[in-house]
């Protein structure tokens, strides 16, 4: 039996790769997910999903053509490191996508990327009860599932030619926790305590950096560290 580690690549600009699970249903894997190839049969490449949060331990397959395109020998690099600094007090903006919002701005720094982010959004109509992410060292987790539904992050992608990974959100574990806090690093103009990449044209570089990194020996579940400073 052949058995070889391969790493997924996206099949669509939104960031996901669809695979067929044995039994007929589909599953969606993010990039750099390790799979263990087990066999080739009837024009398909079969593998076991080995890491991440989705379909782990299940057998999936791709056509030979898609396997050649979307399974790579190259795995992720080591842990990612991202720094976010608060920028002053909340201030008003008129988002072309979301209208008038009071934003807590921040600046995100990662290798090759400096981007404006919003750490919390409030509107006059809906005060909301969220708070910006607290200063400290937090864990960036691997993507959990799609967050797209028609009319959502695709609008940002359509307005930003070349954007990839708009549908990939990175959960945050607070204060070193590895539990999804429901705060995410993602692209957009609306934040409920997330690190929301408001500067849309910077998202692709940040996405490519984050998705290609994993903390070693974490079964592909952790991407790296997010340091938040005031």
């Amino acid at each position, binding site marked *: 039996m052949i058995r070889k580690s391969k790493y997924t690549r996206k099949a669509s600009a939104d960031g996901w790769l669809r695979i*067929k699970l044995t039994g007929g249903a589909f599953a969606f894997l993010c990039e750099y997910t390790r799979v263990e190839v087990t066999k080739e049969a009837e024009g398909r490449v079969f593998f076991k999903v080995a890491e991440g949060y989705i379909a782990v331990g299940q057998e999936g397959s791709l056509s030979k053509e898609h396997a050649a395109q979307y399974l790579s020998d190259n795995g992720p690099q080591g842990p990612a490191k991202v720094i976010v600094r608060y920028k002053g007090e909340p201030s008003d903006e008129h988002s072309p996508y979301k209208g008038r919002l009071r934003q807590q701005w921040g600046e995100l720094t990662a290798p090759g990327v400096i981007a404006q982010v919003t750490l919390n959004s409030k509107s006059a109509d809906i005060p909301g*009860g969220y708070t910006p992410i607290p200063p400290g060292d937090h864990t960036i987790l691997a993507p959990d599932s799609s967050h*797209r539904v028609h009319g959502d992050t695709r609008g940002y992608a359509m307005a930003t030619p070349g954007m990839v990974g708009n549908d990939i959100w990175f959960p945050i574990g607070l204060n070193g926790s590895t539990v999804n806090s*429901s705060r995410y690093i993602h692209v957009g103009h609306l934040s*409920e305590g997330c690190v929301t990449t408001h500067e849309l044209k910077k998202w692709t570089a940040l996405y490519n950096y984050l998705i290609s990194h994993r903390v070693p020996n974490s079964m592909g579940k952790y991407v790296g560290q997010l340091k938040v400073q005031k």
Partner: protein
Amino acid sequence: MSRSVLNAFLLIACSVGVLAAQDKPSANCDLLAKLQKKPKSLEFVSCSRHMELQGKPWMAIYRVDGTHAAEVEQFLVREFGMKKVTHTCCEWASTQNSYVHKDGRVFIFEMGSGETLINRKDQWSKIPYFNVEVELETEEP
């Protein structure tokens, strides 16, 4: 079996002019209506084929006003095994729900609010619309 059924579906679709209008909205691929499982409160918006996506799916788009969204959610959970809509930062959503029809066709169901600051389910009526997407894959991954 599943391929032949899918091909038959596409042949029928072609015969009524759907394939002649690829990537253009069409009322001819109201997928839930074709499955005879469409809640009354769910409004068909459009349908088009997305050649740029893996699987080259037909994608039917629907919407339901926030007042009736919970009913539609329950229907999709019951009939198609969709996961319940949950709230994560900035949106309500249930995504990447794969449903294998008895004839072998694979559909993907998604339902969500888009970005919103409404974060309690008992306030869904304040959300103007929830979107529902139903995809029919035309190629296996």
